[in-house]
């Protein structure tokens, strides 16, 4: 079991200094995530879930505690090491897609693969997300769902170990949201990539292997989901 652990967090904390006051965004949290797992982090806004994702993804540094990725302590990484870490191991998907407006769908994906050593075939990835025909469109010419699919393709094409999605359906309508979730789950199940989804949307938990519930910077509950359901069955 030990060798299957991808992430191990030990007493990780995060404090922000806001003028005179320091805000504890993350109180000591400890948990593990295994390779290939589909984990949903659930919590209301301000619960610290985005902070957690940022720290795990190497976008931000923890104030205290240790974070092990594939057995290596990344909490001591400097800027440069974190950059390399993000470049090769992590793929991000954001709520607002954050595509480069001046690049086409395909070019947006290429932007990520260009700096990655073992990138996947872009056309195949685009086909996988169902955007083969839209490859040469600019973000402004695409719907929200399409844009999010480009964002997913962008994250997947670098061939990272983990996909980290921050409210991936937050800006989408229900039907499109479900499609995006189905795509993410499909990638998780077929490629074995670890999937971390952050959401405040309770029903999404039903598709997870494990759910980490957060409130006010604390983990309040970690539950195993013996029978994760298909996203198409999720209703909200």
């Amino acid at each position: 079991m030990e060798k299957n652990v991808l992430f191990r967090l030990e007493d990780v904390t995060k404090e922000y200094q806001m003028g005179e006051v320091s805000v504890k965004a993350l109180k000591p949290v400890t948990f593990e995530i295994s390779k290939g797992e589909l984990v949903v982090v659930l919590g209301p806004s301000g619960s610290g879930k985005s902070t957690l994702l940022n720290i795990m993804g190497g976008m931000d540094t923890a104030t205290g505690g240790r974070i092990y990725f594939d057995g290596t302590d990344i909490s001591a990484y400097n800027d440069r090491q974190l950059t390399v870490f993000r470049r090769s191991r992590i793929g991000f998907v954001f709520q607002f897609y954050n595509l480069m407006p001046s690049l086409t769908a395909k070019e947006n994906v290429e932007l990520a693969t260009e700096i990655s050593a073992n990138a996947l075939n872009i056309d195949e990835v685009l086909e996988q997300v169902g955007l083969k025909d839209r490859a040469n469109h600019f973000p402004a010419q695409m719907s929200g769902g399409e844009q999010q699919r480009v964002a997913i393709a962008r994250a997947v094409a670098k061939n990272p170990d983990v996909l980290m999605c921050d409210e991936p359906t937050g800006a989408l309508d229900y039907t499109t949201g479900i499609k995006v979730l189905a795509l993410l789950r499909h990638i998780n199940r077929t490629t074995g990539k670890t999937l971390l989804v952050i959401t405040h949307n309770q029903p999404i938990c039903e598709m997870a292997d494990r759910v980490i519930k957060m409130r006010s910077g604390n983990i309040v509950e970690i539950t195993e989901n013996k029978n994760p359901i298909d996203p198409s069955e999720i209703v909200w």
Partner: protein
Amino acid sequence: MSKLNKMLFREIKNGKGQFIAAAAVIFIGIVIFSASYMSYRNLTNTLHFYYEEYKFLDYYAEAQYISPAAVKEVQALDGVKKAMGRISVDVGADMGVDKRITVRLVSLPDNKPPAVNDIFFVSGRYFSGKLQNVCLVMQKFAEAYNMEEGDSIKAIINNQIHEFKVDGIVGSPEFIYAMKSASNFTVSNDEFGIVYIKESAAHSLLGYENGYNQLHVIFEEGTDTKAVIGKIENILKPYGFKNGIERKDQLSHTMINAEIKQQESMAYMFPVLFLTVAAMVIYFMQRRLISNQRTLIGVMKAFGYTNGRILWHYVQNSLLISVVGAIPGSILGIYLGIAMTSMYKDVFTIPVMQIRIYWDILFICISLSMGFCLVAGYSAAKRVLGIQPAQAMRAKVPKAGKRILMERIPLIWNRISFGWKMSIRNIFRSRQRSLFTLVGVVFTIMFFMVTLFFLDAFNHFLTKQFLEFQRHDYKVVFSKPSSYQDALELTHVEGIKKVEPIIEMPVEIKNGWRKEGTTMIGVVDHNSFYQFIDEHGNGVETPEKGILMAHNLVSELGVRPGDTVKVKAYLGGMEEKEVKVAEAIKQYAGFNCYMNLKEMGQLLGEGKFATGALVKAERGADDDIIKALFEMPGVETVEGRLKGYQDFMQYMDLMYAFIGIMIVFGIIMGFAIIFNSTVINIMERRRELASLKVLGYTRREIENTVFRENMLLGMLALVPGVIVGRAACEAFAKQMSVELFTLEVIIYPKTYMIIFVCVFAFIILAQWANKKNMSGLDMVEVLKNREG
């Protein structure tokens, strides 16, 4: 191409207006730099080469009579490479059709070219054969009269006409600018010319037996010239040494040097201004772009792009602007520089013009422009480094709206309309950008002023010098000092209204160790032709005792009114006499001293006499009068006062063209500043402006909030602009004022009006160019978009 570079090019394409505007400012700066630097280098090299090739003097001395033995003695001195005696005398010449002018007869060795101040042939050849009445004529002079080989010139020597056949048309480094004297600060080739004659002919016609009245010297390299000059002057003392002049003070050289100096200062002053403005524009452009793309930078970082790569992405943008502006700018500038040098070649008639393309200028230009842009781009882009990938994902905290000082004065604030309130507040809210706009407009005003003030200053200078300071119509110069009564005889010439005899005498004035050579002019009691004024413009009467001294001389000599100076006339063996400085007078060209004619005669030990006269004629009688004046006995030359004025006016045409180009440059710069700052303003406030649109504001009303802001900043910039501009003009005037004339900073109200109109013209133009940006505000899109 990497996707980041692709992105860069697409971003540039989207914001091409801003890109082009910034590049245009660099383009102009670089054009001015490379053109003036190119012509500066070509001119300097050419001059150096010309001087070397044609053995231009290092020093020359004038004396009453210099024997060949004295020349030999000087030649034998250590450090003297070449010494040559020659005769140089100004005489009248009859140019036909009632035209009498002054020519300078200069002797050349009979059979071989001179050892110092060599000549080059445009046509013809050096003297040969035994004919005495042959001459070589300076090119510019020949051109003024369409003279060719075989034509002849009638020189009037001792009231006799001597005809010289033109054997050749020549040029010389000694007379690139052929000026009669320092007080004739303009060159008029149809009023004065250089004519070379054989030494043997000069000996027999002009006196001096076997001797000379000038000694020209070239020193060995590395010689202590001061010491050698001392020795030469000692040798010449017994020969009635008058004055010694080093190359740096030689008239033609001084003039041409001033010209080159001007090119040099042009090469530095204007480009620095333009490049600074471009750097400012780029800085604000980049800052805005980065703040707009904060999230995208975060995404790039999240995907593993390094800080360095992202920084480079933004710096590249600035570098591209610099290259796009600099490469065509420097190439155009280099060719413009060649054109300018060729123009000088024509003006100066230099045979060995060293026009070379210095490709290193291209390199200098690109580095210079890159340097400025890199500093600007990096200063703006380094903010990228501080952005944490996670931070970038969060929305930027909106700028806090604060009350401004003006709001605390309800009396004013309450009377201002809402639209104006918004514009005023926004100026203070985006302080840095407002400051940028303000400084930009200040720079533009300064640039306009520096360009336009020349016109006013020259106009003022010419008016003062030719129309106010001098009131006579003609100056008559006698071939030798005459009696006062003889001078008055000129009254009998028909059409002459008034005659005032004068004495003009070159003198040396000493105050302690300081000495200056100048011309002392004796004028009659209550003279009516020179209007002397003091520094404050008040009229000054010629004193009975003491001298009036030009303000420049006063400062050069370090004297004050009431001080006593020693005066020595270059009149054979005159001793030094002490004279009191009565008052300092303001003079625009040719720095002279003036005193009462009678007193001056006594000072010279000659009693009341005259070397010429100032004459006022009836209107319209001009041609006949010149002829009649020339026919009077003893009259050598007649100089029309307005001739200099007209000559100068010819140069003004060139100046208008130059100023026209500069104004276009200034407008482009001003436009680029306002245009870019307006684009940035709109980009920063897209949400705000779109909200206004949603609230039902018309397009015009929205446009006005931005327009009002620019107008306000434009108005605020006027006063500091004028102050800074004035200071820049002072600096320029100082640079331009050579020893021969002073340029005063005079700016007419009309000019200020033109400048102000230009400022508001480009503000309106920039607003108009931004219309598309304004009307393109998509309410839904802007308000939905997190980035705004």
